[in-house]
């Protein structure tokens, strides 16, 4: 495989390259060859080989921003659903008392232990708005390079958005329905080229239709 066709869909166990490369994400070395460990897009960037998964659960890493929903109140904090393998605990040091189950919060993953338990910090409460779920592996596309896609979404819909690495997106504004439609396009076409352009033109088109409807 050479650099020209480096970005192709691979299945688990498929050879990514037989050349010596640094091992990036989602690849493993076996008898001198580099194999993919998941269904994803193979990438060879210079001297490293990796696979970007097309499916999969959220696997937390320290530093991730996540959007969670409070499940229940405990003595010192709240158990919170952050779409991880196990519920996470948010301390009351950072949150007010008596928050209702269902309250939306954001937090940063401070630490993940080897038992898949999360420690969260810098938590904030979000009032109102909507919460949608997106496949966690598609989140990078919702954000875009240097946040470019998110900028397009916010500008095109006028919504406030908070995108969690865990596949949860909080939105608030008068045009949430349009934002959700745009996110659905991103999720469906995440593996395709020129996505930002397509979303931009979709939002522009929808905006024009809305204008037209106003004067009709």
């Amino acid at each position, binding site marked *: 495989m050479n650099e020209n066709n480096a*970005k*192709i*869909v691979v*299945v*688990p*166990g*498929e*050879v990514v390259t037989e050349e010596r490369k640094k091992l990036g994400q*989602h690849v*493993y070395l*076996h008898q001198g060859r580099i*194999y993919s*460990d*998941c*269904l994803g*897009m193979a*990438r060879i960037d210079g001297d490293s080989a990796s696979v*970007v*998964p*097309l*499916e*999969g*659960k959220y*696997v937390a*890493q320290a*530093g*991730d*921003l996540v959007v969670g929903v409070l499940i229940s109140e405990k003595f010192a904090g709240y158990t919170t659903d952050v779409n991880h*393998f*196990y519920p996470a605990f948010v301390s009351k040091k950072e949150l007010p008392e008596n928050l209702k189950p269902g309250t939306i919060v*954001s937090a*940063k993953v401070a630490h993940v232990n*080897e*038992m*898949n338990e999360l420690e969260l910090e810098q938590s904030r409460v979000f009032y109102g708005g909507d919460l949608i779920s997106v496949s966690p*592996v*598609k*989140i*990078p*596309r*919702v*954000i*875009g*390079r*240097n*946040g*470019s*896609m*998110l900028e397009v979404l916010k500008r095109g819909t006028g919504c*406030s*958005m*908070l*995108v*969690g*690495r865990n596949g949860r997106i909080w939105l608030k504004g008068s045009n949430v329905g349009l934002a959700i439609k745009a996110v659905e396009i991103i999720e469906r076409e*995440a*593996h*395709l*080229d020129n*996505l930002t352009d397509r979303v931009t033109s979709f939002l522009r088109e929808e905006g024009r239709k809305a204008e037209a409807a106003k004067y009709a």
Partner: protein
Amino acid sequence: MAKKTGSEETVTYVDKSGKRLDGRKADELRKIKVEVGVIPRADGSAYVEWGQNKVLASVYGPRECLPKHLANPYKAIVRYTYRMAAFSVPDRKNPKPGRREIEISKVSGEALARAIFLERFPNTAIDVDVEILDSNAGTRVAALTAASVALADAGIPMRDLVAGIGVGKAGGHLLVDLNKAEEDAPDAVDIPMAILPNLGEVVLLQLDGLMTQKEWEESQKLAFQHVKKVYELQKEALKKKYAVEGNSGDMEAGARAAEEGVVE
């Protein structure tokens, strides 16, 4: 065990022109179809038609392992459930899981476990459920074939896909992918196998019937040779889900740019 013991009847399992009862050659698989993502609710799913066999497989997880005492602090556990629908056999099957189904579930789950990087998901469970909707011999290997595609569809990290294949013997001939009529031969030997095609490893192997060591070694070669076709179909089905022209999505564009998501 519906073996016809009436020795008077002589069936020709491979005729002079090398054709089997259903017209296949000795080393020919039945027609196989693999589809991906057939159960929208599941984390991953697949449907396999293998001759008359029809199998649905779903994957949920890795997810919280309940009840908790089953969890392993070092790795994920695989819970594989193989079941046959009541209408999937000529007579009605009692829907209550039988001993055969329980044994198949156990060895099949162990076969899949080898393929998965379980140690990346300590304390979790990966639930794999397969339902046989129609059957005509070879359901457990069709089920594993579907299950492994469903695992890949769920994005679960794996060393390799698991491809199933049946080999064996009927009427003195070594055959690939026996159907029910062939499995009922008086001298039938049935060898379900599951193989990691790229790593060349055997993860499921059972045999019943009488066979010499030489015949076995020959059968194993046949299995390795023809399992490649099953694997190609699995691969093709998975890729088809994402096959679009000019395919080079830049998934890493905003990778880990979590900060950008915060509202101003």
